[in-house]
């Protein structure tokens, strides 16, 4: 058998583009990550199709960076079409795809609106010059709590370890967010130059809290279920979610960036190597970089849009919205948020294993 386990040394080559004749597009994305009306239609996508004639098949196929990667990596390694022409994945995973050559290089000529990209995101270390990826939405990881149970509110990650909350605290299974917050609490600059010692210190704190039973559970997106069922009363959370569940299950929760700082992440469009519809994908990206469209999406999903001018456009929709720091953060808010630095493969392996060992218990 050929020993092409995982990545493989020979990088696959991009598929031929048939966008000229094939006016369709498959978009794999996370759940609740685009505007949706009561009939289950996506208004911005409907408008996009009217405008360009490209039929978009929007699929909620990403539940987790790792599991999505696990599902498609073999096809990617062979350069095959994975059934998605564009996928939105988180920074570090995008970095891995780019390293492995699983993405197609974008033709910036097809994305003139890229000029609207927030300067802060124009040159990330995993994709200098945004040659392979373009941000879709971003968000903060911080802390949240049940206002009814904890009327006093929380301020820092330390507050989660309060004895009164024993067994009622949730943390995220996304290593960069949970460990990131803990490192920030320890005074580490997570974007800067830190090493094993800093990571270990934070990981140990988490291990202690999990083993002592202070932390009830470590979950991905389903931490929301626990919040709703009140299995947990406080948690490490993603900013956009809280707005959504407040709308859905009564205005019971509050989100805050901890005093020591929160993490900032982005999910990015990319075009998988086997996709024959790169141009269509670029057309789509360009469309969502129009400030009006970006504002419409942002108003619905409650995450941070990377499009300059969207805030102004949003004022037109709902002035209150524009004031929401979680959607249109000002400089002050942004200064509290930090981006987790890119890890080397060896670090990635090592830290993930250490983090997983907490998740799996012993």
């Amino acid at each position: 058998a050929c020993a092409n386990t995982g990545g493989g040394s020979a990088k696959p080559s991009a598929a031929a583009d048939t966008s000229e004749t094939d006016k369709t597009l498959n978009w794999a994305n996370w759940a609740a990550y685009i505007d949706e009306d009561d009939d289950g239609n996506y208004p911005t996508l409907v408008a996009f199709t009217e405008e360009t004639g490209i039929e978009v098949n929007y699929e909620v196929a990403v539940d987790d960076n790792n599991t999505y990667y696990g599902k498609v990596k073999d096809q990617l390694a062979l350069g095959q079409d994975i059934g998605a022409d564009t996928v939105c994945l988180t920074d570090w995973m995008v970095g891995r795809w780019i390293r492995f050559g699983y993405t197609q290089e974008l033709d910036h000529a097809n994305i003139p609106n890229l000029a609207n990209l927030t300067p802060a995101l124009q040159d990330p270390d995993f994709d200098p010059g945004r040659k392979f990826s373009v941000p879709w939405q971003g968000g903060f990881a911080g802390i949240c709590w049940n206002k009814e149970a904890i009327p006093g509110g929380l301020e820092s990650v330390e507050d989660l370890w309060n004895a009164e909350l024993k067994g009622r605290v949730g943390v995220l299974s996304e290593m960069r967010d949970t460990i990131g917050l803990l490192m920030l609490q320890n005074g580490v600059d997570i974007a800067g130059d830190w090493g094993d010692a800093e990571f270990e210190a934070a990981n140990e704190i988490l291990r202690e809290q999990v083993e002592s039973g202070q932390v009830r559970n470590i979950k991905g997106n389903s931490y929301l279920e626990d919040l709703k069922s009140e299995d947990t009363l406080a948690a490490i959370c993603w900013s956009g979610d809280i707005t959504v569940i407040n709308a859905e299950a009564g205005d019971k929760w509050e989100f805050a960036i901890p005093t020591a700082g929160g993490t900032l992440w982005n999910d990015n469009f990319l075009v998988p190597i086997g996709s024959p519809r790169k141009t269509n994908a670029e057309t789509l990206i360009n469309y969502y970089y129009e400030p009006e469209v970006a504002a419409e999406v942002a108003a619905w999903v409650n995450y941070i849009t990377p499009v300059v001018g969207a805030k102004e456009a949003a004022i037109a929709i709902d002035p209150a919205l524009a004031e929401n720091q979680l959607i249109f953060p000002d400089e002050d808010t942004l200064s509290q948020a930090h981006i987790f630095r890119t890890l080397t493969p060896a670090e990635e392996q090592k830290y993930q294993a250490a983090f997983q060992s907490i998740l799996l218990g012993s």
Partner: protein
Amino acid sequence: MGLGDWLLPAYTIIAFVFLLIPIVYTFVFSFNDSIKSNIAWRGFTLDKWLNVCNVEGGAVCQAFGNSIVIGLVATVIATTLGTMIAIALVRYRFRARSSISLLLFLPMATPEVVLGAGLAAQFLAVGVPKDMLTIILAHTMFCISFVVVTVKARVASLDPALEEAGRDLYGSPSQVFWRVTFPLLLPGILAAALLSFALSFDDFIITNFNSGSVSTFPKYIYISASRGIPAEANVIASAVFIIALVIVITAQVSRAARVRRLAKL
């Protein structure tokens, strides 16, 4: 008599209540007027039943459709292959018999994660991309053993004298097979097929390792579980449950009626 007379029936009732609680819960929450996730009760609505396929661009229905297709194809292949093995095992004597029996028992004794991971590793090593085909191949594999067990019991209980009588009454070997053997095995074969379908339809673990980007109904639920399962999933599950129950109960009642009619003769 006394105690034992009502203790067991009472226990049985409690046991059934226990068994059915989560099913009733699932059914009730298919009418929940939920938004994204389906946890807190927000009021009664028929919307979810009326618009099952409208949510998330029909992802639920597509997953459901995939599950049906996979189940059907895997069932047909596994039933055919398994029935052939069952007949051979009961009716013929050959040397490798015990090794073959072991080979058939092993998949049933192997935990699903091992089956799933092993097959996934294999597909990986050979470079087969994961899609519907790999799921079908995987499902067929674990269904075969169950088919063999089910059909074998039927073949073994088939009186060989019946086939001999067929031959004695001028039936050629193929006539004897199609007119005597096959009709007599049919109920067993159907039971095996049903079992295969049920196993395939509800399988998540093996599927998860071998499905690549293809979604199936259990996989859809598993993925959605991390962010709240839409009530539409409850709708589909409840619908499948009700349809299956109606079919089975109708069959049982009509069988009972037939038996009673038979008893009157």
